[in-house]
């Protein structure tokens, strides 16, 4: 087929353009992901004791997860469309991670030297970083499918953003049933879990996001 014939074909009856927005559908997928992750997490391990709702740990986890979710949702919104500058969104994500690392470091410095390792490991250091990526799978699948409907041009990083967002959602759901009270624990093991989810997205991106 000649290119000029193709152009004539494409243009004939093209009509006005209906602009595509991602906001509403992204909101729906995120909302569904939060509900699902919370339900699974609460269903398997039950809710945290009521006393935790007045302590700092649970709120640190929820704030961290929410902030990262917001940052990565912005990043995903940028990467789902061709030609948008993603640098500011990457910057926000890095800033959130740096803040969490700083808060985690401060909390560790407040613990006497000999007790630091048990403080950081808690009781579930080997569960948390695996539970979060597993818990993130439904949201990750939903987000990848959603993103593919738009026009991501950097599939690796768009997949990464899907994974980061899914991991943040999973971390929030996981926090509802996680009894670890140390801020340093959150900074390390929650972050590791979320990074693994993001890695999963980055690996899946090039294959699953092609359009």
């Amino acid at each position, binding site marked *: *087929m000649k*290119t000029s014939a193709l*152009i004539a074909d*494409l*243009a004939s009856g*093209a009509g006005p*353009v209906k602009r595509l927005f991602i906001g509403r559908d992204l909101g729906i997928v995120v909302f569904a992901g939060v509900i699902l992750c919370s339900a699974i997490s609460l269903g398997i391990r039950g809710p945290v004791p009521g006393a935790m709702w007045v302590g700092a740990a649970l709120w640190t986890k929820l704030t961290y997860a929410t902030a990262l979710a917001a940052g990565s949702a912005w990043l995903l919104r940028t990467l789902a469309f*061709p030609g948008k500058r993603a640098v500011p969104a990457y910057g926000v994500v890095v800033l959130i991670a740096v803040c969490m690392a700083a808060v985690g470091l401060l909390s560790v410095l407040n613990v006497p030297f000999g007790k630091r390792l048990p403080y950081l490991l808690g009781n579930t250091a080997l569960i948390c970083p695996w539970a979060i990526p597993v818990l993130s799978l439904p949201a990750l699948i939903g987000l990848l499918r959603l993103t593919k409907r738009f*026009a991501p041009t950097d599939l690796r990083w768009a997949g990464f953003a899907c994974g980061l967002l899914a991991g943040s959602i999973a971390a929030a759901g996981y926090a509802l049933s996680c009894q670890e009270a140390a801020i340093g624990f959150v900074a390390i093991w929650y972050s590791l879990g979320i990074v693994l989810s993001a890695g999963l997205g980055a690996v899946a991106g090039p294959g699953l996001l092609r*359009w």
Partner: protein
Amino acid sequence: MVMDQPDRFATELSALWGLAQTGDEAAYAKALHLIASRLRGYFTRRLSSLSGETEDLVQETLIAVHTKRGTYDPALPVENWVFAIASYKLVDFWRRHGRREALHQPLDLTDEDLLIAETNEDAFAEQDVNVLLNTLPTQQRRAIELTRIQGLSMAEASNQTGISVSALKVHVHRGLKRLASLVRLSK
């Protein structure tokens, strides 16, 4: 003098694109021609030894531009949006091309009997349109049958199949391209 070329491209394109967005088909066709001629240079420079593939890539990109028109954000320069799609198609092409070349090599080196068998008369006699059409995916075959053999218009075919006009156009294009490559392959 050379430097003002891209700027002229950008201003011309954004004017046409604005009209095209509101449904001006003539402006849209002009914009696509402008994009096509710009992409030809872009791809030729980057493909060097494979410049025979330039036109295919130009067409792939035009189809992508068309089907993803809704993702253009008017706050951005059109050319940024177009070139982001073009570079995506180029990377995608390299990925596919590398894989396909790897698959072809052993066949070229060893199976000479196979090639000879394919060139005898019987093989050509089999190349009835229907036989070829049957090798296509259902949607592409149907789109070609309706619009190129039965002679329906895109809108009529769309009504009959429930597939949108722009999706039909893509099916027809992909189908014809695939047929052409099938014929080339068996010769």
